[in-house]
């Protein structure tokens, strides 16, 4: 056995102690309901209570469209930003800035800007597009916008990164053979980009799926944006029922892993070889 494998030891110990062990601990805790009952009592409690059960749908209804929009919007924009041009670095920096905003500034900003007396509604009413202020905060849309603001730059960077990894000579070759621009995109770029898009979607989805602070701050945490992480948090830190909280966390992880698995299976059916861009 190669001695260099020992280098893997610290990381392996770390992941076992700080990730696998707590996870297993949480899983077993979730089968030991605080108030007695069967092994699955916590899970039964969650699924028999519509107020709790619906958090799954609520979370997916926010996270899936937000992640999808972020990835789909990133493709054409990244496509136009390939290659070298003056101001590219500035443009990338500007697109990255929203990452620094943080949930609270985004939340405060959305409340100020999109609120009933905010600039957005003032402009809408000023140019006569609306008679009354449109409600865009403290509901679904507030959370959705906050996920776009924080998620899009991230998705864009990843897509741009994958796109610059595709060897431009492939497209040039296709062009020489007479392929039109849309043919080149559909037959060359898109298949090579698809695995990257799947990864980007997954990472943005994970970000959106765990949305918690913005669901409280710009959403309607008792109703339309009561996401599953909020249910888990309330169980742990408001009812101090760690067993139930762990059960909710496990359900949350399971739902999330189902989406991840679907995307990964779809991805594995795509071409996964090198994009030919290794320099």
């Amino acid at each position, binding site marked *: 056995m*190669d*001695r*260099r494998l020992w*280098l893997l030891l610290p*990381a392996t110990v770390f*992941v076992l102690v*700080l*990730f696998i*062990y*707590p*996870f297993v601990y949480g*899983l077993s*805790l979730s089968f030991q309901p605080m108030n007695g009952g069967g092994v699955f009592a916590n899970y039964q409690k969650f699924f028999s209570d519509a107020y709790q059960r619906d958090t799954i749908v609520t979370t997916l209804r926010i996270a899936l469209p937000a992640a999808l929009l972020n990835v789909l919007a990133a493709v*054409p*924009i990244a496509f136009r930003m390939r*290659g*070298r*041009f003056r*101001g590219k*670095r500035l*443009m*990338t*920096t*500007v697109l*990255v800035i929203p*990452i*620094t905003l*943080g949930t*609270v*500034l985004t*939340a*405060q*900003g959305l409340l100020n*800007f999109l609120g009933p007396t*905010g*600039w957005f509604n003032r402009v809408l009413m000023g140019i006569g597009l609306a008679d009354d202020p449109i409600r865009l905060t403290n509901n679904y849309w507030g959370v959705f916008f906050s996920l776009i*603001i924080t998620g*899009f730059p991230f998705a864009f960077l*990843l897509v*741009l*990164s*994958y796109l610059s990894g595709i060897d*431009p000579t492939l497209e*040039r070759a296709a*062009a020489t053979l007479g392929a*039109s621009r849309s043919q080149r995109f559909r037959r060359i770029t898109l298949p090579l980009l698809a695995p990257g898009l799947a990864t980007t979607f997954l990472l943005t989805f*994970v970000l959106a799926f765990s949305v*918690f*602070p913005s669901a*409280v701050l710009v959403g309607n945490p008792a109703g339309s944006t009561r996401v599953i992480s909020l249910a888990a*948090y309330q169980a742990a830190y408001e009812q101090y029922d760690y067993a139930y909280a*762990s059960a909710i*966390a*496990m359900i*949350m*992880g399971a739902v*999330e892993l189902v989406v991840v698995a679907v995307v990964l299976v779809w991805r594995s059916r795509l071409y996964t070889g090198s*994009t030919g*861009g290794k*320099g």
Partner: protein
Amino acid sequence: MSANTSSAAVRTGRPAGGPPAATGVRRVLRATPTAWVIWAVVLFFFVNLAGVVGSVLVSSFGRRWFDTWLPTGFTTQWYGEAWHEFGLLHVITVTLIASALVVVLSVLVGAPAAYVLARQNFPGKRLVYLTFLLPILMPPITYGIPLATVLYKFGFAGHLSGVVLANLVPSVPFVILTMTPFIEQVDPRIESAARMLGAGTRAVFLKILAPLLVPGLLASAILVLVRTVGMFELTFLTAGPDSQTLVVALYYSMSAAGIRAQQSVDAMAVIYTSMMLVLLVVALRFVNPTQLVARVKEEPE
């Protein structure tokens, strides 16, 4: 943005007839209707984003701001208030210490593992890789709640050590993932040559690999730093009153509405964002964000 709206529309030259997009040659401006639509959407996004950020900035300097376009007057008092009331100096110190510890520890643990994963094949490699990937693929709350419970059990949570340990969970895998492509890029023949000339493993690491990997190390360290300063969930679940980082303190000040003047929260958010911005600008000096996942030689100037 204005610097490149003109040049961004510069499109690849004619498809047929010679190699289009020839290296370094200024390309012909051909803006298609789709291009205009896309740039209009981008512009709309940025106008609104500017509104979101601008309204916070204006509010943080504003006196009273109700149903008008702008506040009635301007002042810097909210910054002073935020600084004193929230004990920001302490909070910022905690944030920086915790993040620095997370960066150092995750690089020390992650980089050697990245090296093995990039270079060696061994039975069960895929399983090991998947295990390292999982913490990134799971939302922090899912493992954060069991992790916080365990950390409370052993007396780490509520202190700085708990915050650091919890933040290591996504950071170490992140270092491994970002470092692996950098290591793969280093030609193994360089190492073999050094070994043939009698260098031991230690010497190979310190004299050959470390200098070549400085860009990769910096890249992952800075990204971990930005991530940790911005990490809300894990810190929120494990921090005690004395170990709150800036994001968590901010969240508390905003969710406990009515106690604080809204402008004071705005001022604090501006302070947080300025700090993140400085970190990110520093990061962008070392890391080309477009080369994070696929390393490509940029076309020569």
